[in-house]
């Protein structure tokens, strides 16, 4: 909880400071833009959070977004699939990818880093091969379909809520219920903390981990569908590049530990928003765009460092208190 408040504080501070220095940052247009992009990244981050809680990692999110983004227009435009069927199919591909990861990790006992690194290469390559490396899009004849991602709900003034924010909130609420109210959620945390104890307690740890990878890739697939309708122009060789790193960064910033067993949906969503806000602030404040990564990297590092500091301090305080109790 402290962690969430801390990162929320940073988010608000960055927004206020940027808003004062550059009022255009708080304009309806910019905020709509920032929230829309935040929503996509928050969705991807929620997905990878499940895997990170088990102590694993998924590096293949970007290429999954890329593959889905290229397959979808291919199926709809070139092969004339009904859009609904096409969406189900590409999400199925994503789920299959997650299943493969999960099986390789739990049954073949391969390391998650290695499995998903290989996935990263394979899905990127597949996207390029299937499309003949040609730019993919829906053209101008599917504008109704594009509204799935582009629709905006108007608010008073020139403010509006982009529809992906609504999807993201629904996913976030479902994910939070899943993590906190279901048996599976409890198992995820238990496995992340001590897989052996969980296994010895009669939990089918392999199945729970498999589920985490399926969720991660499927959610990445959904994010990929939304991004495809929004962008309407996908380069097979680069669409979705580095998205996995943003997703992991947001999860870590939001309180996930790569050691596993920690993380909350609220933290991860705020983390994802903070990354996009920093990106936008960097632009609006006229900081050279070449320094973008430097800004984000530094904030991430500072956040993790501060967290360790707080943990160390509170642990030490606890020890001192218990030492006093013993002495008394």
């Amino acid at each position: 909880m402290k962690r969430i408040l801390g990162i929320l504080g940073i988010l608000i501070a960055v927004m206020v400071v940027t808003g004062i220095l550059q009022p255009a940052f708080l304009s309806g247009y910019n905020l709509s833009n920032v929230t829309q992009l935040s929503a996509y990244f928050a969705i991807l981050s929620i997905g990878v959070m499940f895997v990170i809680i088990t102590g694993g990692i998924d590096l293949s999110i970007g290429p999954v977004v890329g593959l889905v983004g290229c397959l979808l227009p291919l199926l709809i435009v070139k092969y004339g699939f009904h859009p609904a069927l096409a969406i189900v199919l590409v999400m199925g591909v994503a789920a299959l990818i997650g299943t493969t990861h999960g099986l390789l990790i739990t049954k073949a006992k391969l390391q998650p880093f290695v499995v998903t690194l290989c996935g990263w290469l394979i899905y990127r390559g597949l996207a390029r091969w299937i499309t003949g490396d040609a730019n993919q899009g829906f053209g101008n004849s599917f504008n109704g379909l594009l509204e799935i991602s582009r629709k905006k709900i108007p608010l008073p003034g020139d403010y509006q809520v982009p529809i992906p924010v609504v999807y993201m909130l629904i996913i976030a609420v479902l994910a939070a219920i899943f993590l906190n109210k279901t048996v599976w959620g409890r198992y995820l945390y238990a496995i992340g903390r001590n897989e052996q104890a969980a296994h010895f307690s009669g939990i089918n740890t392999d199945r729970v981990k498999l589920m985490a990878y399926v969720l991660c890739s499927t959610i990445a697939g959904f994010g990929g569908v939304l991004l495809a309708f929004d962008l309407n122009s996908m380069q097979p060789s680069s669409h979705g590049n580095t998205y996995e790193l943003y997703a992991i960064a947001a999860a870590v910033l939001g309180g996930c530990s790569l050691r596993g067993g920690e993380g909350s949906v609220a933290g991860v969503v705020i983390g994802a928003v903070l990354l996009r806000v920093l990106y936008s602030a960097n632009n609006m404040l006229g900081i050279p765009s070449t320094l973008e990564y430097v800004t984000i990297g530094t904030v991430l590092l500072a956040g993790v460092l501060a967290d360790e500091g707080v943990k160390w301090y509170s642990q030490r305080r606890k020890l001192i208190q218990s030492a006093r109790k013993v002495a008394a």
Partner: protein
Amino acid sequence: MGDRRENMVSATSKTTTDATTGPLPDRTNDSPLLLAASQITKEFPGCKALDRVSVSFSPSEIVAILGENGAGKSTLMKILAGVQPPDGGELLVDGQPVVFRDVRDAIEHGIVLIHQELNLAENLSIGANLFLGREPTRWGFIDQKTIRRLSRELLERVGLNYTPETIVGELSTGQQQLVEIAKALSIQARVLIMDEPTASLSQYETELLYGVVRKLKADGVCVIYISHRLSEIQELADRVVVLRDGQYVGEISRAEMTREKMVSMMIGRSLTSGIERHSHTPGPEVFRVKDLVTTAFPEARNSFSLKAGEIVGMAGLVGAGRTELLRAVFGIDRPLAGEIFCDSKLVRISSPRAAMHLGMALVPEDRKGEGLVLEMSVRHNHTLATLARQASLGVFINAAQEVTDSQRMITALRTKTASDQLAVQFLSGGNQQKVVIGKWLLSNPKILLLDEPTRGVDVGAKQEIYRIMEELAGQGLSLLFVSSDLEEVIRMSDRVLVMHEGKITGELSRQQLSETAIMALATGGALS
């Protein structure tokens, strides 16, 4: 049974008094003293590992250190080798008092300890390992030629027929042990200390090691080693030093080295009174294991059965294969062969989950690594195994039920915790163990397996755990508990299975139970 115990106590009480009153054993007439420990004391939180222990060692002798688990053997060896400093007493080398600040200090005086877990870099060659950290150099580069030459000499001395270029990982455990000895020789060891050197060796490798040890003795080296194998000690040692409960009990010279004498000196403490298990008429058989073979001991077949309302103890020395047997039964490790019957029905237990569904539960040996999720709360640990069973629609956690279940266990087992929301890592060992037991009791097991249930638990909590075990048996559960604490095994068991080197070597009924009988079976002997 009563007479036997009395005899045992009287036979050994004499030696105990000798030991505590006697000063440094006077051996200067025989040969010069090489290494001596005088009145060494070492305390750990909650226990006195060594209490004024005095021993001395001369060149060209082989001394075995004998004692039960927890007698203080390893601690004494560590102090002699500078791994740990003593809290009291002093060490003498060549009659001069010395203080070892660390292992290096001890090595400089020619005292080298070879750990039970070998300290070799398995990815490097024999030569590289022999001179790790002190490589001879030439022009600032490692002098491979000198390493090779010196290594060859050393390998010849320990009778290891490999080239210095061989990668250590390719050698068997016994051969690696010889590399460790070669390493000790290369630093001119005068005293070589080995902690259970033959524990993981085959018969052939053991013979090889004996040969090397005898050669070292001929070269004037003093070899001190810990072993649980009495036959091995009889064959090799010139002298046995016996420790018990951190105290020096006495010595046995080669001439008087009988199995009976060693066992009685090792265990001869008087049994403290307390709840003792009264004889019960056990119920019908509920569980049977037939010809089970574990991966750790592929040549041993084991069979046993459990009856309702019965507490069965499983005794044996550390590494006798008891934990491996429990793990195989509970579906953690897949057995190589064998059958398991629950209520006379053949069952397949492929995972702890399957075992749980058959009404089994395991309180594992490693409480922190295998029993608990330390960072999770007492409540969440309690419900970990039964969460799905209580969930609504099989998915949604029944939070109210969680609170009730957890509180029920805290009350029933008298677990001391400030709140059931507290992370279980902040509880004492005994209370942590109660949480593990509570977790399993919530699953209503019929068969409860416990692996060293009172290890690392204080005396008061031990009594509590005994009480809980008694109560559960009274309710008709079958309990099988592994313990290295003989006193506890004798007190709590209706029947005892004894294991030695992976095999159940015997079964003792309550009437046959004595420490002597258990130790005889546990060290590979037969019942007299």
